[in-house]
């Protein structure tokens, strides 16, 4: 395929433009710059006495995009709640970042953070030789248009983040969380321009599978959630952790270093990705967005990884970052922020001719990394890359003038022209801050009447079959979760290798028994009542899962990933404020710092008549270092005769629960978090585990105690006999279904080896716990209600079949 050469550089007539013209320029050019930002640019160029070129406008639009600058989180928000108005100057600094700062100060010498919020991923300590790198991102908009390619490049992109952190980490596992509309959504009700959720589901899974498996990175953990509001905006969270030698975490580019691109060639793919993700999808975007969609090539990325690890250890480069959103413009613009850089576009290797200069500079072609290479190492780097068929090209150098200068030689001729010359200060700091209003109005959702509730046994079977709870084995087995040979606790556990594990444990250094635990907390359902408690619950859930498998919360760090609707709408923004405030409160109270995060806004779909916004969705990912993987605990019950305990208090907190959803209600009481009680419980449980007092442990989350107990039983292949009256609970809890299905936080179902009950109870002193029953030899789950009658008596085979059937595709 060939295209005509096109070296056209246009200038934007900005100096004389009216407000209306500027608004049109931004919209027609897909720049996603608002009027205030356009005015700032006009003012800047007025002072220079010239109009900006298209390369400059595109670079500014991209650098100032929500995707890159996080203008909502860093902006000014007037938060109105009732009669009170609070001005929040930089929500991010006052919640997420402040939590980390406060925790690190309190922890003093025990602070385990190495690098937070500054690099492409967060870094914490692992052992004497390595640190641990972790990043989670979203790739929502592209996945809505092309599920396979979108998810494919989503995972490819997030792998490049740890690879571009410090001087490059070696990926050790992936984690993926998806939110889709239910797969049985009626075809006839699909809005124009929307792909069916089942196709999205299958495409996304295939995209993650094909990239992760080919890269040889195990996908060890994840979650899939379903809600009709994800119909036009599926969410695809991809995360990658890596290990990096402790002496390879510092990076800098020096004047005189060469700008080197390695990996894939540059094409027209992915133009406008960053600005595109800051625009609401409409039914027209399927055809207008062609260039924003990319397809990944995992083998290219694997080749890059292979040579980079060698180049890193040989010290052949001084700085590295990935080409993500914004391509060269973003990567080089960021790396050269403190020095300045000059780029020679004609030296960039292209897939085909015909790209305009701005397209070369902005292209988001996949599998490219930018390095800062001292001139004395360039030959060694070239030789190394050539020896493994990786292309490496010098496309410029870092200067000392703090300007981003882009030049080009049109028509492959000799004359060099300057197509962009931007002041780094203006590029990175010139974006005007916006004041937005957030307005919080607490919703009021009725509780389901008593006569609308089916019996406990029937409810339990239905809950196990609900999309959110049902087994995801069909997905999990398509991911290679064993590659690299570090698997300790797999996503599926138990007597038949098919029970749902809480968190995965990986042993990244094969000669060591030190492990890494990864868990994810997410439950957008509570956000329909209060996003504050949604965020609090997500943190609590992630920490519970860490605790379940043997982790310690004081060795745990968090990542936040906000996927929200349009932040220009005050109710959406208020939800964000509340969730962020909870992040501060709960993280500080648990002592678990945030080390990295990401946000994705404008997840709303409009087909002209109606607008569907996703429910505010916060993913909390937790990562924990475990000294001895031999102490890990799985969730399957181990032996008849062992005792079953419920640890933690059960309250009347069915609001937003899976049980209420099943009945068609939302309810009033979302689960709250009592951090003092929660951290006490988690620490005591960890101590009990260290002493071998816990045979199995499972997190009570969606579906509550009943679902957790059922999963433990059928995973282990042994029944249970439980008595609800022994469950520690609030005095007002007087209904069986509340005890069974409430989703109160900080609770665990624990199996204790027979004969060690007294030791366990002594260890748990100070936390609410109750010995609720035993593991039985019969393959049946029996539950005695508060009134003393047997309210559940169901064969494990029935429960397991209900749980496995829905996604047995």
């Amino acid at each position, binding site marked *: *395929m060939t295209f005509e050469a096109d070296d056209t550089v246009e200038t934007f007539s900005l100096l004389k433009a009216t407000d209306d013209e500027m608004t049109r320029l931004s919209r027609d050019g897909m720049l996603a710059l608002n009027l205030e930002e356009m005015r700032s640019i006009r003012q800047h160029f007025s002072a220079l006495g010239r109009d900006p070129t298209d390369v400059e406008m595109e670079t500014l639009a991209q650098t100032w995009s929500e995707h890159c600058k996080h203008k909502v989180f860093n902006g000014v928000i007037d938060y109105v709640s009732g009669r009170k108005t609070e001005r929040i100057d930089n929500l991010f600094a006052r919640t997420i970042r402040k939590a980390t700062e406060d925790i690190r100060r309190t922890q003093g010498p025990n602070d385990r953070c190495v690098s937070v919020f500054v690099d492409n991923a967060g870094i914490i300590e692992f052992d004497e030789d390595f640190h641990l790198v972790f990043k989670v991102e979203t790739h929502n908009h592209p996945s809505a*248009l*092309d599920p*396979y*390619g979108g998810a494919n490049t989503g995972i490819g992109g997030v792998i490049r983040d740890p690879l571009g952190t410090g001087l490059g980490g070696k990926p050790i596992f992936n984690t993926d969380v998806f939110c889709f509309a239910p797969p049985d959504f009626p*075809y006839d009700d699909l809005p124009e321009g929307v*792909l*069916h959720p*089942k*196709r999205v589901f*299958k495409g996304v899974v295939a995209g993650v599978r094909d990239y992760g498996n080919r890269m040889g990175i195990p996908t060890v953990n994840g979650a899939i959630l379903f809600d009709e509001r994800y119909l036009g905006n599926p969410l695809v969270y991809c995360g990658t952790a890596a290990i990096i030698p402790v002496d390879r975490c510092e990076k800098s580019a020096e004047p005189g270093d060469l700008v080197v691109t390695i990996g894939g060639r540059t*094409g*027209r*793919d992915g133009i406008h990705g960053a600005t595109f993700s800051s625009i609401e999808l409409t039914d027209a975007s*399927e*055809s207008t*967005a*062609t260039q924003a*969609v*990319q*397809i*990944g*090539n995992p*083998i*290219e990325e694997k080749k890059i990884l292979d040579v980079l690890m060698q180049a890193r250890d040989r010290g052949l480069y001084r700085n590295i970052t990935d080409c993500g959103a914004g391509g060269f413009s973003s990567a080089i613009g960021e790396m050269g922020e403190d020095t300045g850089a000059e780029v020679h576009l004609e030296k960039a290797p292209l*897939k*085909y001719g015909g790209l305009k200069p701005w397209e070369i500079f902005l292209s988001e*072609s*996949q599998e490219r990394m930018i390095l800062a290479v001292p001139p004395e190492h360039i030959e060694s780097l070239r030789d190394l890359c050539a020896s493994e068929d990786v292309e490496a090209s010098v496309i410029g150098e870092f200067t000392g003038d703090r300007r981003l200068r882009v030049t080009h030689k049109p028509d492959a001729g000799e004359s060099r022209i300057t197509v962009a010359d931007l002041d780094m200060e203006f590029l990175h700091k010139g974006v005007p801050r916006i004041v937005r209003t957030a307005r919080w109005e607490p919703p009021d959702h009725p509780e389901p009447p008593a006569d609308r509730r089916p019996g406990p046994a029937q409810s339990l079977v239905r809950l196990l079959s609900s999309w959110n709870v049902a087994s995801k084995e069909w997905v999990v087995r398509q991911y290679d979760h064993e590659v690299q040979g570090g698997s300790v606790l797999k996503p599926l556990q138990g007597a038949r290798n098919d029970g749902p594990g809480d968190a995965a444990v990986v042993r990244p250094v094969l000669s060591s028994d030190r492990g890494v635990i990864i868990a994810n907390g997410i439950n957008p359902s509570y956000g329909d009542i209060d996003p504050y408690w949604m965020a609090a619950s997500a943190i609590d859930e992630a920490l519970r899962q860490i605790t379940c498998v043997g982790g310690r919360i004081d060795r745990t760090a968090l990542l936040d990933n906000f996927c929200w609707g349009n932040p220009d709408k005050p109710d959406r923004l208020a939800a964000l404020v509340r969730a962020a405030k909870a992040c501060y409160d709960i993280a500080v109270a648990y002592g678990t710092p945030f080390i990295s995060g990401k946000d994705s806004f404008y997840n709303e779909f409009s087909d002209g008549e109606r607008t569907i916004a996703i429910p505010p969705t916060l993913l909390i990912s937790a990562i924990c270092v475990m000294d001895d993987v031999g102490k890990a605990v799985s969730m399957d019950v181990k032996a008849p005769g062992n005792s079953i305990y419920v640890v933690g208090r059960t309250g009347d907190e069915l609001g937003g629960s899976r049980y209420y959803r099943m009945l068609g209600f939302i309810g009033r009481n979302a689960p709250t978090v009592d951090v003092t009680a929660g951290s006490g419980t988690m620490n005591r449980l960890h101590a009990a585990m260290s002493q071998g007092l816990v045979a199995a442990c499972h997190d009570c989350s969606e579906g509550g105690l009943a679902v957790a107990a059922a999963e433990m039983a059928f995973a282990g292949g042994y029944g249970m006999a439980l008595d609800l009256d022994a469950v520690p609970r609030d005095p007002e809890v007087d209904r069986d279904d509340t005890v069974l299905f409430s989703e109160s936080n900080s609770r665990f179902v624990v199996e204790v080896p027979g004969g060690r009950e007294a030791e366990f109870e002594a260890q748990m002193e100070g936390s609410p716990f109750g010995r609720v029953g035993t593991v039985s030899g019969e393959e049946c789950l029996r539950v005695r209600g508060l009134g003393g009658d047997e309210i559940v008596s169901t064969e494990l085979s029935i429960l397991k079949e209900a749980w496995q059937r829905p996604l047995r*595709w």
Partner: protein
Amino acid sequence: MTAESKTRRIAVVNRKEVVDAVGEGLRGDILDLGIGSVEGVRHVRLYALHGALSAAELDRITSGLLTDPVTQEHLEIADAGLPVAPGEWGVEVWFRPGVTDAVGETALKGSRDLGVAGIESVDTGRGYILAGPLIRSQVDTICRRLLANDVIERYACYEGGQ
């Protein structure tokens, strides 16, 4: 004798007795779409080889590289030339220009390893042969909802025996 540069289109199909797992999976997905009249789906891998190839070189690539000798067979086809019997529909899906085609790159590498110097580039696509009493609008629905993504691919469908 030097061959002249042109495009040769190759279809690789599973032998009749070989399980076509991809096709079977797609049949289930088509049933999910509410189109119950589809009786079978066969999956075809398509290659467009660009360059100056002698007959021997073409055979070296197709037999030696693109086709599994135990399970598959290949045939050279014309544009819109899948082997479609009367009562069947053929569907071809190809990438739009400029979309990364990693498989095509790999096929090019393999061909060069074989010593075929005249090969210039390879494009890859997918073909499907749908059996059963289907009408064009149904085939279009299957293509749009399942087989092709308009954002990155273009497709053509045609009825056998026409």
